[in-house]
């Protein structure tokens, strides 16, 4: 990690600072992200490939990973729709209490996740405010995989709202007026003009909500019930392995999550990087 630029690295601007900035960035990134992750991979590798595969293929591991990624994907999908709607309402309408709603969107960022988990569990439990009526309909939320999705929707919501909101604000009213004068009805305007313009932001929000959900631990464990093979998420499985002093086992699950997350986020970013370029912004 040298700060001096090799000859083939073109100075990007006449303003100085590239070398220093890149050096600090790489150092910080190494200390905080790269070295700990490398340690994780080393730990997992220390047990040898045969054992690694055995842990990776264990039924309980596979079930936990499937639940973590499946529920996160579902929750991110729900957030994409729901968050888009909230952003729309906040940007387009002026109503009493708008600022309160706007502030409330950020609460999942700020609240201790355990508090959120306990609150959700209490409300969605079979005797809770929402859980009871749902129970009479035969729908169980708390202590099932559905409960996991509910918790992940909660913690991922602000990501979609906060990425879509500024883009919606930027859409000039003239564009919608132009569509209306050209004969498009409201529905057509929304689907052909508004949604395509916010799609890159929506995709970014989706990826962030998804990534956050995959790693979420605190709020989920209270509402999930944590039944192995049914409602046990991968981060919990890691903690369980640690409590059993099975450090290598924990590391293996960690590495699997790391690899899967990295690949999925990279794919999504590549996909919508292409979209962004086509639209001419960024």
């Amino acid at each position, binding site marked *: 990690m040298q700060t001096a630029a090799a000859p083939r690295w073109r100075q990007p601007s006449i303003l100085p600072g590239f070398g220093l900035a890149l050096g600090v960035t790489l150092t910080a990134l190494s200390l905080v992200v790269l070295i700990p992750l490398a340690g994780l991979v080393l730990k997992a590798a220390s047990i040898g490939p045969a054992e690694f595969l055995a842990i990776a293929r264990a039924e309980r591991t596979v079930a936990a990973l499937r639940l973590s990624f499946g529920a996160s994907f579902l929750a991110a999908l729900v957030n994409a729709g729901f968050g888009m709607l909230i952003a729309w309402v906040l940007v387009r309408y002026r109503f009493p209490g708008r600022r309160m709603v706007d502030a409330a969107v950020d609460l999942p960022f700020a609240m201790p996740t355990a508090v959120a988990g306990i609150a959700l569990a209490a409300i969605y439990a079979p005797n809770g405010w929402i859980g009871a009526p749902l129970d009479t309909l035969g729908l169980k939320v708390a202590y099932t995989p559905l409960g996991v999705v509910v918790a992940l929707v909660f913690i991922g919501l602000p990501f979609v709202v906060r990425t879509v909101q500024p883009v919606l604000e930027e859409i000039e009213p*003239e*564009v919608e007026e*132009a*569509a209306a004068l*050209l*004969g498009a009805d409201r529905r057509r305007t929304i689907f052909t003009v508004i949604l395509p313009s916010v799609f890159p932001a929506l995709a970014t929000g989706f990826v962030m909500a998804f990534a956050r959900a995959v790693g979420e631990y605190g709020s989920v464990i209270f509402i999930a019930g944590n039944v192995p093979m049914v409602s046990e998420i991968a981060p919990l499985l890691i903690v369980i392995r640690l409590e059993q002093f099975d450090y290598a086992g924990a590391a293996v699950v960690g590495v699997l999550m790391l690899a899967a997350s990295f690949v999925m986020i990279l794919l999504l970013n590549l996909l919508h990087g292409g979209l962004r370029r086509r*639209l*001419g*912004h960024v």
Partner: protein
Amino acid sequence: MSVAVRIEAVTKLFGPFPALRGVSLEVEPAELVALLGPSGSGKTTLLRVIAGLEEQNGGRVLFDDIESHRLSLRDRRIGFVFQHYALFRHMTVADNIAYGLKARPRRERPSSEAIRQRVGQLLDLVQLTGLEKRFPGQLSGGQRQRVALARALAIEPRVLLLDEPFGALDARVRKDLRQWLRDVHRRTGHTTLFVTHDQDEALELADRVAILNDGRIEQVGTPDDVYDKPATPFVCGFLGESNRIGVELAGGQAFLGDTPIFPATHNNGRGAADLFVRPQDVRMEPPGGQGLAGVVAAVRRHGAIRRAEVAVAGLARRLDVDLPSAIVPAIGETVGLKIVRATVFGPSA
């Protein structure tokens, strides 16, 4: 008698603030009319009321004698060109132009082959053939505005409305587009209203110019009419350059102090009046004559002509006087001034 757009006593309030105070205007088929005025005069508001993007508080707008509020935005068939283009950024040029055709209800929608042909014709008309696959972000400002015009023309509009169409472009491109728009109008013959604050643009392009001020139409007429026979002091001061001289009228003469400076023969009123004199209508003469006299304070170049600023006793502002090339006054020289032509606004008989 046919009138393409008839505006009757339209008023529009924004909160307590009146943006239009009873505007009436008739536009004939295939006419090109400019709405000219300073910012805040209500010209854009008027255009948006005609388009149906704002609802008037009073008065009526009629298209071919049909009351506009009976028509939906779609049925008004307004081609609208926005100052900042308002193109759909995520669509190609071709898709932008085809948008209005594709938005029609299924039974009125042309076949995709017909749409493709129409887009081709329009691209040809706006001289952008070959750029149909580009995105708006990859075009220059002038090209974007031409795409916006093609998109508006695609729906075969009843009326074409342009809101400061060249306002966001640099001077050179503006001039080119002006001629080009004139040409397109001649070939397509759409009834057209455009808003501008640029008087050169209005006078050069329009068949008729409507001058707005403070929510009212001050004067409507051909460019020659409004320039040579301004109906109000505002029009006189707004169009072209004028010296405004406060005078006393008496016996068909305009006096500055005791000096008779201009014969106002058609006006027999008495009392204070305003004399508007264009710089080219003042002649510089040797001093010692009957009329005005002053001291040359500065000589500057003003494009093709030279212009002198002459300080005249009794006037707070210096008079602008255009100079023929033969006359080269020295700074500080005393000169005589003869007003050849002027417009008088003041007490009428």
